[in-house]
């Protein structure tokens, strides 16, 4: 049965998430470099490209933060800081193998609640600097939230329904035989899409898009920018990582110990997302909203119905 991790895991968690975020961002930088500048053509050059996130972080630490006139500094800062905080708090219920920092009886709800903080975070960061483009982009994220949140919640509900529990540990335990992804493929796909949307990354980066000069992050400099954009990578790692206990059997797997399976599966999901992202432009929410509500919501509802019928008859 799942149990809580020792106390020191509280300290390890943010560090581990940060390492995973840096590795993911490094992988992304290698692929971007190949697209923009041709293949690295050497392990050294590829290594230098992989180190881009670290170098960028150092650069942003040296850069001074800045202020804009009549800015709402309190709320703007709050928005910036909330992004990594939400990611780490959501990560608290993420099981490593079979142990999470905390495994409350409503773990799935906790996870969703922490993600919802991202709504506030991006909007506040867009509102803070008193600048038209960043405010427009803050509102873009609210539209994005409306589009992704319903399919996302139905996907979460489906997994919880399959396990007949909101405890993440129970969801993992219920997949000892068959992984949920096998009989809930639609929920899994909807979850992955919304994971990207929640991390406002890749095809869902509209709130930070180039067409608005960087969107909600347009006025952020120095350490503010680092915390906000770094927090975004943390969110991506956490939301992608949570698909492992929900749908991919958590720590279950042959031969290797649970934590290794968790690590492998998380890495596979992240790699998949980073690679697939290259095939897509940024989606405008005006268009995605139609698809989300007309296609994804009915599909995820049907998926939930199917799972409910199976659970009732077993």
């Amino acid at each position, binding site marked *: 049965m799942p149990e809580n991790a020792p106390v020191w895991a509280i300290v390890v968690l943010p560090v581990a998430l940060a390492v995973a975020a840096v590795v993911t961002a490094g992988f992304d930088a290698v692929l971007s470099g190949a697209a923009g500048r041709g293949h690295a053509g050497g392990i050294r050059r590829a290594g230098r490209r992989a180190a881009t996130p670290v170098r960028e972080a150092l650069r942003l630490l040296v850069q001074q933060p800045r202020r804009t006139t009549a800015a709402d500094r309190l709320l703007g800062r709050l928005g910036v800081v909330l992004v990594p905080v939400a990611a780490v708090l959501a990560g608290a219920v993420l099981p490593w193998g079979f142990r999470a920092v905390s495994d409350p009886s409503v773990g799935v709800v906790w996870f969703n609640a922490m993600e919802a903080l991202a709504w506030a975070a991006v909007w506040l960061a867009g509102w803070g600097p008193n600048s038209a483009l960043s405010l427009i982009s803050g509102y873009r994220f609210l539209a994005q939230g409306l589009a992704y949140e319903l399919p996302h919640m139905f996907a979460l509900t489906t997994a919880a329904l399959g396990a007949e529990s909101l405890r993440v540990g129970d969801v993992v335990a219920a997949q000892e035989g068959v992984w949920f992804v096998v009989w809930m493929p639609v929920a899994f796909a909807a979850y992955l899409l919304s994971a990207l949307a929640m991390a406002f990354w890749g*095809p869902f980066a509209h709130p930070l898009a180039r067409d608005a000069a960087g969107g909600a992050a347009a006025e952020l400099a120095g350490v503010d920018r680092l915390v906000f954009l770094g927090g975004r990578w943390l969110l991506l790692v956490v939301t992608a990582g949570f698909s492992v206990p929900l749908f991919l059997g958590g720590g279950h797997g042959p031969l290797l110990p649970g934590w290794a399976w968790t690590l492998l599966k998380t890495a596979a999901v992240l790699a998949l997302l980073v690679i697939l992202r290259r095939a897509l432009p940024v989606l405008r929410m005006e268009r995605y909203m139609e698809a989300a509500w007309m296609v994804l919501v009915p599909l995820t509802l049907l998926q939930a119905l199917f799972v409910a019928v199976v659970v009732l008859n077993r």
Partner: protein
Amino acid sequence: MDLRAFLRRTAMSRPAVLVVTLPGATRLRLEVEAELRRREWPVVGAPAAADLLVVCGDPAAQGAWPEWLDDIERSMPEPAARAVMGESARVGGALDAGRGEVTGRAVAPRGDGGRHEDRAAPSGDGHHRPADHAEHMDHAEHMDHHASHMDHQDHSPGGHMDHTGHMDHAGHDMHAMADIAGLPMAERADDRDELRLDRLHVPIGPGLTDWPTGLILRLALQGDVVQGVEVDHLPVPPAHRPPFWDEPWLRAARGEEVTRGGAARRRCAAHLDSAGRLLAVVGWDDVAAPFRRLRDELLAGASRTEVAGEVHRTVRRVGRSRVLRWSIAGLGRLPADTARAAGVSGPALAATGDAYDRLLMWLGEIERGLEVLDDTRPLAPDDRTGPRGRLDGPRPPSQALLDVLPDLLTGVEFACARIVVASLDPDLDELALAPVTGAAHA
């Protein structure tokens, strides 16, 4: 060994660059973009993210000193520096000098404390630049600065060459008009459903990335819906060279020997540049970046066999993307008769459709152009169809593209407006063209 100095220098060894291009400097822009790509320096889209402001072109040729450049630099976080690319062939050296300045300031911050606090808050103190604030609620973006200063030509143009001494703006105090921190509130007007809503005047350009060089749009925004557009641009100085993208056709018209292959090469590169911009605006960097690399390889004289494979591959990838089509189809619809009435020629007329059709038209012309890349026959002197349209018309083709902008942009959302502009990609260098075309017949 001072570890802090070492770290600071390392951090700024690849400064983040914001590239601003002035009209007439397309060639320089391409050189700078190629050089930055070779150096793998990050290229950013906003002053807040930048360490080094790279100006392509000669600011002094703008008539009055472009103060919006100073404003962009002032809204960059410390350590900030500017590098002006005046001449081609010196791009590398100027970038090195710019980086030197950035690292120097990073290691020894100006005045340590008070001074850089001041600079980090470009408009944070009320008396700094109140002239801007009187007009726009949001002065924080670089897009605004230009327009506000266009209206304030009473600043002595030469007085701002020294961009570190800006305290002299205190004389322009206009607090009387201000409501909050020197800024006026938004006015109100009826929106498209006749609801009275806040209306905000936001000028965008010319400092945006992936944006037609020198273009300024004065938008009246309600929420993110564009309610009114005024098209403006930076002064386009009369050039002693023809516009870069139209060069082969204009030179052939003057009787110089230009090969068909050379002209096709320029047309392909122009469309790769335009398509790269559009794809960057829609947020698909993974194909925008190769388009730019291929553009530079073509301009550097790569042979057909070297580039054709990758061009076809990338073009096919874009053409096959249903998501891209779904995302931009229907934006900026320009029917043939409207286009013809406005004097549009070239791909925008031939596409007779929306932003997606225009993109496909560019892609088609790129692929067709590749076929004749090695054609050494001379270009027919009466062939005057440049990448953006007929160069022998009464007005330059890009002027017609600018003329259709207000109708296409009114009523669309901000995000769509950027896509529509990028799908037309007017080249403002052509505005200096009118007399040249006339003289070409002589």
